[in-house]
């Protein structure tokens, strides 16, 4: 994992409606719906992934949503992840 994150930084539990993530660095727990989880899972493998690269995974979780709505979801997830310092060194 890039961005200085150790490969075993996160513990993840997955269910139909989303995921729960335990951040071993901070001790924090983060629960996410499927769209936010798609952003997380993509960034967890590549913290430099662009919105375009993330979009297909998010679209699959938001049937019927427009591209703009999916991009808004990605932007919102990034803000949340920044606030939680999930992908920062």
């Amino acid at each position, binding site marked *: 994992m890039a961005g200085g994150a150790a490969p075993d930084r996160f*513990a993840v*539990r997955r*269910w*139909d*409606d*989303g*995921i*729960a993530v*335990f951040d*071993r660095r901070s*001790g924090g*727990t983060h*629960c*996410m*719906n499927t769209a936010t*989880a798609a952003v997380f899972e993509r960034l967890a493998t590549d913290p430099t992934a662009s919105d375009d690269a993330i979009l297909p995974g998010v679209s699959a979780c938001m049937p019927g949503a427009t591209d703009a709505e999916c991009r808004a979801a990605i932007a919102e997830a990034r803000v949340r992840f920044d606030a939680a310092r999930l992908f920062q060194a």
Partner: protein
Amino acid sequence: MTDPASASATARTVADLGPTRLAALMRQGRLALQTGPLLSRLQTPLADVAAYVAQAYRHHPCVIDAEFVDVSVSVRRPFNLRRWLRSQVEFLVEGESPFEPLPREQAPALLEWGLNWTIASSCHQWLTVHAACLEREGRAVILPAPPGSGKSTLCAALALRGWRLLSDELTLLDPLDGQVWGLARPINLKNASIDLIQAFEPAAEWGPTTFDTRKGRVTHLCAPRHSVERMTQPAMPAWVVFPRYQAGAEPLLQPRGKAGTFTHFATNAFNYSILGELAFDAVGRLLDRCECFDFTYSRIDDALEVFDWLAGSPAPQTV
């Protein structure tokens, strides 16, 4: 005059002691009460608190002069000026008072609230979740819910109709094996819920009623004897049900997402952050194993029917 606490016979239950000896032992700090896996030393010079314990915990085992206890608490009048102005009562754990004193007449209720606080803040061998818990035929249901949701009312009705009461307030989840432990302590009921359960089961046993608390009128329903007798048996959770009382509503049991349910456990387990990843794993395994529901109801009889149906449903296959 004979000291009633000096009688030599070893009591098996609180009822065996009799109220006079119990009060003397509690005054001397020599009584430890068994609630589920916990042994709690209870000390008080207050006769009404001793009488409450004699009544509400009559079926519970107790130990005199225990060498080891899990928690040690006391309820007494504080040594401050206010004892001369308006009589108060304070709760102490290991000699320290974690709360402001309350009006004197709330002493029995303060014992219960203080015990809840003590267990939640010091017993980290379990993940302690703010939720009721009951068991039937080896499978446990966890009822997490905010105040006002009807959790305790529903818990009381279930405990009086064939479900074993593990706890009304604190569900103790073993993070290693996933089982839940019961305390079989009295169920705290408030206001209209008291009348409802008294009408529902006239033979139920109760503690004294306290008026004008912050929560209004409160009292405690004694744990049914069969629950106390089995209180050291843990159970494996099978369901997590979030009850919600809604006037006039038809009973409705709806599946609930597990990621969303996780959020509730992470924020309503008192020691989640202390246990860290151990708690994360424990909640994750719990939700993998359990069916999760939201349940809306307005009539107790409807709710009992739904829970009977739930208990009769086949257990899921485990791999």
